[in-house]
């Protein structure tokens, strides 16, 4: 358990640093890439949970994450196409991907209730991190009003996910 807590603490510090790195002002193409990547990461975790979770509320939560993040990412793709923007890979996206690969490897090694608890806890931590980044860095930096509006809608949805993940995590204790 201590190892797990240390892992999530380390992941949180790593990601905070990642977001701070380019906090100066990511461009709209970079913001689009970060937001899309963040969604894909949560879909990958949810798909793992779909196959490994044993608790029905955890499975249902994973379904919700897949449904919502796919829907928001489809909107994002449609918007970048409409705006003629090409999402641009950047340090924050790369750091998020690296962090998620480590998290997935950790989760893959767990079974049964231990997996359920670790997945729920990681979803709370991940949504907190992404929501803070949206609020403090990505939304203020976004220049295009339609992109800014989509990020603001996304933030509302993901704040709901954070609360939902907290409810699920609490039930598992």
């Amino acid at each position, binding site marked *: 358990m201590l190892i797990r807590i240390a892992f999530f603490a380390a992941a949180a510090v790593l990601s905070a640093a990642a977001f701070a790195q380019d906090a100066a002002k990511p461009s709209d193409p970079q913001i689009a890439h970060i937001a899309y990547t963040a969604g894909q990461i949560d879909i990958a975790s949810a798909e793992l949970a779909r196959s490994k979770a044993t608790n029905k509320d955890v499975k249902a939560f994973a379904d*919700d994450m897949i449904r919502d993040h796919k829907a928001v990412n489809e909107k994002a793709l449609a918007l970048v196409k409409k705006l003629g923007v090409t999402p641009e890979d950047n340090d924050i996206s790369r750091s998020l991907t690296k962090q998620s690969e480590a998290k997935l490897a950790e989760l893959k090694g767990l079974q049964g209730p231990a997996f359920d608890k670790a997945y729920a806890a990681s979803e709370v931590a991940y949504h907190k991190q992404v929501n803070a980044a949206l609020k403090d860095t990505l939304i203020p930096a976004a220049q295009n009003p339609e992109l800014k509006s989509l990020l603001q809608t996304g933030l509302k949805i993901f704040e709901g996910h954070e609360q939902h993940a907290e409810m699920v995590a609490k039930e598992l204790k």
Partner: protein
Amino acid sequence: MTWRRLAAGVALAAGAACAGAALGAADPLHRVEIKDVGFAPPVIRVRVGEAVEWTNNDPVAHTATASDGSWEVDLQPGESGRREMQKAGTFGYLCRYHPNMTGTIVVAP
């Protein structure tokens, strides 16, 4: 304006009047908007036999689901759905996908 166009206009107006009457005082529709993962208004007051209509203006799917599980309205993005309230009382409901989204329907006899 041609006679044909005038006749079409009159027919349209008559149709609109009928539609209005259908949703008139005897059978009012109470609308709830879903936006930014919330029901607005969060509390709605209706009478027995009247309907509540939810419109989902979010990019993600929602439901309006009775807290006791007795009914559910599926609401895909951009779609509306309605339910007639058949019993008096105060009833809680939520979105099954986002359980932190809650609302209340107060049904008067």
